């Protein structure tokens, strides 16, 4: 059986997210990832703290935070605080942040590679209990640190840019590849492994996507395909048979909301990004993808928080069948 985790985006109240985390824990999911989507969602650390107070065993991490909205030392201290509160169950997930999160804050995301690298490296030093002095390119630290960190607190990275993945392979404890075009997965994994070779690092690899055992759920996925398809590289669009005109039309329709734009996405553009079919078919395909690329863990993306309760049950069945 593969190790599985779930991403719960706090688009609903903290109480609702806590209930889902408790359910995930009962069902055997080993991690809950809480994304930081800025003002669109509830605060990531309030949500994580509430989960920590209400669960016993499930690991709790950011999925992901960026190095811009909070000072990275503040983020590291927050993770260590949750780790202490939860009896050693916290992990830190970094990414470079997206426009949904950063645009309303007026943050332009300068030099993301350096920001992420300095954030990961300084966080790791602080988790080890070191007092950090850094005249970095993205930030300054003067004797920053804390005494309540756990030295082996995991630091993950999630993203898709080849340089970012190469860097993450070199320095992160784990790399999450989320919602990528399945036929192109090999090249993303290769970028991580090439980076890992430069330092002798052995990052864990997590594959993440949506799982659809009930075909009604494809409607939940369609809106979330819009920005992902528009942002996909030209070769992925070409493989799908998607023209630039079609891509532009989706981008324009996104101005009227993701639901509206989602109507322009046919099933055959969804299928190469998700695991879809009966429970047994999904289990077989999930096994196949995980084995083909040497993934260590799987993370379920929950697109529709209203239907999350049933989805967690359905995907637990799929995982049990792997």
């Amino acid at each position, binding site marked *: 059986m593969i190790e599985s985790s779930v991403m719960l985006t706090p688009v609903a109240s903290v109480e609702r997210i806590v209930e889902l985390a408790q359910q995930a824990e009962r069902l055997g999911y080993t991690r809950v990832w809480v994304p930081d989507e800025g003002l669109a969602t509830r605060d990531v650390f309030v949500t994580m703290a509430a989960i920590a107070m209400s669960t016993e065993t499930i690991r709790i991490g950011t999925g992901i935070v960026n190095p811009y909205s909070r000072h990275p030392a503040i983020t590291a201290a927050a993770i260590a605080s949750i780790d202490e509160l939860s009896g050693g169950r916290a992990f830190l997930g970094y990414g470079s942040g997206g426009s949904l999160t950063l645009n309303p*804050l007026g943050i332009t995301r300068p030099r993301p590679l350096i920001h992420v690298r300095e954030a990961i490296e300084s966080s790791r030093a602080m988790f080890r209990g070191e007092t950090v002095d850094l005249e970095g390119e993205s930030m300054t*630290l003067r004797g920053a640190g804390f005494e*309540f960190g756990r030295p082996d607190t995991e630091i993950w990275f999630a993203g898709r840019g080849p340089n970012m993945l190469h860097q993450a392979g070199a320095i992160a404890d784990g790399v999450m590849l989320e919602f990528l075009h399945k036929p192109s997965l090999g090249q993303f994994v290769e970028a991580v492994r090439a980076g890992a070779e430069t330092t002798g690092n052995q990052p864990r690899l997590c594959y993440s996507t949506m799982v659809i055992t009930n075909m009604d759920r494809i409607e939940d996925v369609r809106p979330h395909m819009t920005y992902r398809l528009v942002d996909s590289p030209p070769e992925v669009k070409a493989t799908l048979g998607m023209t630039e005109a079609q891509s532009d039309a989706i981008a324009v329709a996104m101005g009227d909301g993701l639901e509206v734009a989602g109507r322009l996405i046919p099933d055959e553009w969804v299928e190469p990004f998700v695991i879809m079919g009966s429970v047994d078919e999904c289990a077989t395909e999930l096994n196949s993808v995980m084995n083909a690329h040497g993934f260590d863990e799987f993370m379920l993306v929950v697109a529709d928080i209203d239907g999350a309760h049933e989805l967690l049950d359905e995907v637990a069945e799929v995982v049990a069948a792997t």
Partner: protein
Amino acid sequence: MIRWGVWFEPTQPVARLCELAKQAEAAGAEVCLVADEGTERDVYVALTAILMSTDKMVVGPAITNPFSRHPVATAAAVATLAELAPHRVWHGLGVGGSRVLDPLGVDPPRPYTALRETFESNTTLLAGGSVGSARLPWFDASVPIAIAGRGPRVQRLAAERADWVILSAKGADEMPETAVTIRAAGDAKIGWSAYLAYDAAERARVLRHFSYMAIDAPPEIREAAGLTDEATALVKAAMLGGDMELAASYLPDALVDLFAIAGTPEECAATIAGCAAHFDMFLLPMNNESSCESHIAQSAEILNSIG
């Protein structure tokens, strides 16, 4: 009875802060403020846990600053707390001090302007409004905003526009005039925070806390306290070296009489009672980590004895 609350620095595990908050609530505290001390325990993690561990007390970051997080990220965190526990959250703001900002490499050129802009943006966001393209689409409650600070501009901003002004390390003899100034400027209620030194042991513990005040205070306040620039430099050097005991050794003992409430328990109660008309909430800071339980218990006796 006077209204009172407790004020913690998150230098202790969050689980312990929760136990102390429960004790304080049972003893009559209405409010539990937690300072944002940079790389100490995260203030929002602590506040979430305290909210979930207590029944009715109001909590808030007090204070947080405009620099360690993007100000609207702070607004989102406060709104999340307020959604989790309606009517039980304050948003405390200040300019931040060197203890918090130095390790982060933050040396704000215009701290007052940053505070004012953060106050304005977060007031709007927490009231359901938009600031540029920023808004909190899922939040529709309201959150009182408290501003703390020692400088006259900050106190004026708080008095004129905030819901609460928090006065720290303000001696009892200064309270009447300060309250008159604040109440003349606006409708803000007054939270008065002062260390209680009701015996010799607490007096020694209280003095240590004036190191930060000494290095962050405006020059006129240092002068009034008899703190020379040389002594202030020695305090700062000792603090940077991590030796808080040494830092405190440069501080004049008279600071306790100036800025704390000192005397026997009965004298402390009488001092606070004498100021009762000049504040709306007394905020009790902790003197010493390991003795918080007895400090809360003894202070509660003093505060609850005031008619």
